[in-house]
């Protein structure tokens, strides 16, 4: 069976995704599957050199405590210094990292991860099950402040099975469970004697060690010569800087102070492109912009009102003006086209004031007055986007009053609290995680207070379903439900844009989650 799949992959008759899914479904150990991929796509990275990075984010309050990782600076540093059990491959599937292999029980409730023998921490210690358990437990328990806590909610028990094997018992079946471990919070750190980790430790299993770290300013990473993972960590030395000002970031790239910057000012990207030494990297991803409405609060409790609003927004304008063309129109559902179970059959929803009016009438309304709460930091251009929405909605007889909230405290005082606001999602690696996080009834971050019986039922079923076809059908239906009956307007998916000098190289395919190869570019890319 494996042989057959391998052949199909090579000849291109099946997509890589199908292959992985198929292999996983058969309970195959995933390690061998990913090796196959490595063989199939020969790449020729170069060793050595220095990479200097200018990041928008990074704060003086940053720490190495994985529970508080919340910006690109720490994500990239974290992925370079620590390994996770599983990493997300460019095709959106999981791929073993510190785990050599993993397998599920038939009900997908028990998962067994076998650790690599060769993996060592930078202090030379071998990675053991105890390290994994301590690292995961850091995010669990009543006193954990970790943002990863909700991800790991379904874990009932973690046990070591010998030094080398960790067994997770879940409260319910979850076919995507391994992919959770790609999360940047879940890098493995050495356990201390008392079974906890030192939250500030910089000792990891990754390809780089920290030479210096100044929060919010810069980090210097040095390659580990004894890195256990082969074919990774090509660059000798990496320097990460926080350059919050867009113009400064751009100047730094142009003057050769740095080799790579994230989020160049979209206004001037077209000019940046003219520079012969600079290349742009755009990456579709899971990033999407949302305007959640509380589905339990009038007038949003009427689906006709929600549909009216969904038809009253000009999505193309959103992409053109707010995203400066770096994005794709969305269809009011959060699954990105790069993801495994993306429903490509949903007809795109066009800007249609007449239809909006029709829905209003169905709701028994002539006009609609609502307040849309927003702030500059809801996402870049959120205020502009809201104002544009307000303008176009007038054509449908909908008056949207844009309420600009203070950026400070927006996430604590407005988001989840106001019935109609703006927000965004960087995305989740799987459809299940995305839905579970933001659409499942009772989820902490169910920003639209969405509660749909059929959807809730499908979510649980699909999670534990190991048959890909059945799963696909379930996820397709869920996307349909969210799009048509959901309480979230999703006007667009964004693209990540980064700019770099031509000496920076990357593999042919990169991971589509978050920016810069799933933020794992430091160990995956190389310089010439």
């Amino acid at each position, binding site marked *: 069976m494996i042989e057959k799949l391998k052949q199909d992959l090579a000849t291109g008759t099946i997509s890589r995704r199908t292959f992985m899914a198929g292999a996983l479904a058969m309970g195959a150990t995933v390690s061998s599957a990913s090796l196959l991929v490595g063989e199939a796509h020969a790449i020729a990275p170069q060793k050595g050199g220095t990479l200097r990075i200018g990041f928008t984010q990074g704060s003086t309050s940053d720490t190495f405590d994985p529970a*508080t990782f919340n910006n690109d600076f720490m994500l990239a540093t974290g992925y370079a210094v620590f390994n996770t059990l599983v990493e997300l491959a460019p095709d959106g599937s999981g791929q073993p990292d510190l785990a050599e292999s993993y397998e599920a029980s038939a009900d997908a409730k028990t998962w067994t991860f076998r650790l690599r023998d060769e993996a060592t921490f930078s202090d030379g210690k071998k990675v053991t099950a105890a390290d994994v358990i301590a690292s995961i437990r850091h995010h669990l328990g009543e006193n954990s402040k970790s943002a990863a806590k909700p991800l790991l909610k379904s874990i009932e028990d973690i046990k070591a099975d010998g030094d080398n094997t960790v067994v997770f018992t879940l409260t319910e079946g979850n076919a995507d469970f391994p992919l959770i471990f790609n999360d940047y919070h879940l890098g493995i750190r050495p356990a201390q004697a008392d079974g906890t980790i030192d939250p500030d430790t910089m000792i990891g299993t990754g390809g780089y060690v920290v030479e210096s770290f100044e929060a919010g300013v810069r980090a210097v990473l040095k390659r580990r010569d004894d890195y256990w993972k082969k074919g990774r960590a090509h660059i000798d030395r990496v320097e990460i800087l926080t350059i919050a000002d867009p113009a400064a970031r751009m100047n730094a790239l142009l003057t050769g102070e740095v080799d790579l910057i994230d989020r160049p000012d979209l206004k001037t990207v077209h000019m940046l492109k003219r520079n012969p030494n600079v290349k742009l990297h755009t990456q579709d991803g899971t990033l999407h912009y949302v305007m959640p409405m509380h589905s339990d609060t009038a007038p949003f409790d009427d689906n006709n009102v929600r549909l009216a609003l969904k038809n009253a927004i000009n999505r193309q304008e959103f992409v053109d003006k707010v995203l400066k063309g770096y994005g794709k129109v969305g269809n009011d559902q959060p699954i990105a086209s790069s993801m495994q179970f993306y429903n490509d059959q949903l007809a795109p929803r066009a800007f249609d004031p007449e239809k909006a009016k029709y829905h209003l009438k169905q709701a028994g309304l002539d006009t609609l007055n609502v307040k849309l709460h927003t702030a500059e930091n809801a996402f870049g251009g959120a205020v502009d986007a809201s104002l544009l929405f307000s303008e176009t909605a007038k054509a449908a007889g909908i008056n949207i009053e844009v309420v600009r909230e203070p950026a400070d405290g927006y996430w*604590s005082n407005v988001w989840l609290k106001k019935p109609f606001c703006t927000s965004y999602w960087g995305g989740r690696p799987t459809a299940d995680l995305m839905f579970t996080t933001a659409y499942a009834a009772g989820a902490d971050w169910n920003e639209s207070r969405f509660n749909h019986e059929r959807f809730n039922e499908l979510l649980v079923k699909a999670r534990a379903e190991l048959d890909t076809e059945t799963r696909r059908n379930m996820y397709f239906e869920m996307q349909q439900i969210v799009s048509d009956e959901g309480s979230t307007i999703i006007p667009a998916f964004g693209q990540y844009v980064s700019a770099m000098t031509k000496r920076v190289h990357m593999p042919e395919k990169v991971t589509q989650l978050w920016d810069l190869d799933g933020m794992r570019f430091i160990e995956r890319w190389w310089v010439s």
Partner: protein
Amino acid sequence: MSGIQKLVLRRIGLGIVTLFIVSLLIFIGVELLPSDLAQEILGQAATPETVAAFRRELGLDQPAVIRYLEWVAGVFQGDFGVSLANRRDVAELVAPRLKNTMFLAGYAAAIAVPVAVTLGILAALFRNSIFDRLANVFALSSISLPEFFVAYVLILLFAVNIPLFPSLARIDDATPFIEALYRTFLPALTLILVVIAHMMRMTRAAIINVLAEPYIEMARLKGVPRYKVILRHALPNALPPIINVVAINLAYLIVGVVVVEVVFVYPGLGQLLVDAVAKRDFPVVQAVGLFFAATYISLNILADVLSILSNPRLRAKA
């Protein structure tokens, strides 16, 4: 104890009281800010549960008064506490940035003050000449442009078009002094351009003001050349306002350079303070805020003392 010492001691005492009130104000300010460190750090990722856990860990569940008193008690023992955000000792966190801030301020001041005073004297000497008018227009233009704009233009000119200087002012402990001067040249130049105009105009105005005094006419009628009249007779008596404006600008160079820090990615105190305010990291806000206030107060005391010393009458009286 001489009068000057008494005066300085009294002013220092008053300054300490002021500092205390400032610290109380900052604390109340931080308390009044919407949301707190736990929510800010966790951001969108915050859930009520994680926020509560974080608050417990940070001690934010304690009443405000207790937290403030504990902090004050710490300060009296020379302990500025630890950053809520990363549990590092505040003093240790602030020290390297303080050094950077002082370095840049000193660098800019070392050039700006003599140049501004000289230009001001020249403008007063050649009052209403072409030079004076040009200097005036230059001064007005440089204060009328936003700092970040000046910075961008300088980067364009001296880093992009003619690559003489780096566009990022990256220095650390290991950077040799000369190298540090080179790397921070553009931010220093930006600051120089920003502060020079004010000092120059005030120097000119102060000297011209003194020129109306009878003793200036007397000096001229003694046959003293014009430049000596300015230097020997006008300047010493124009010193107090000049000292004052220099002090104000020195204070600005230390406390007001956030924007320049951002543009040149220079790790100074301003950026730390802005971040700390954004993150509600109270001990850091307090430490930096107090340092800034102390800078302002001590520069003021220094300016007063120097003004007094520059006047023989006050000098003897004090």
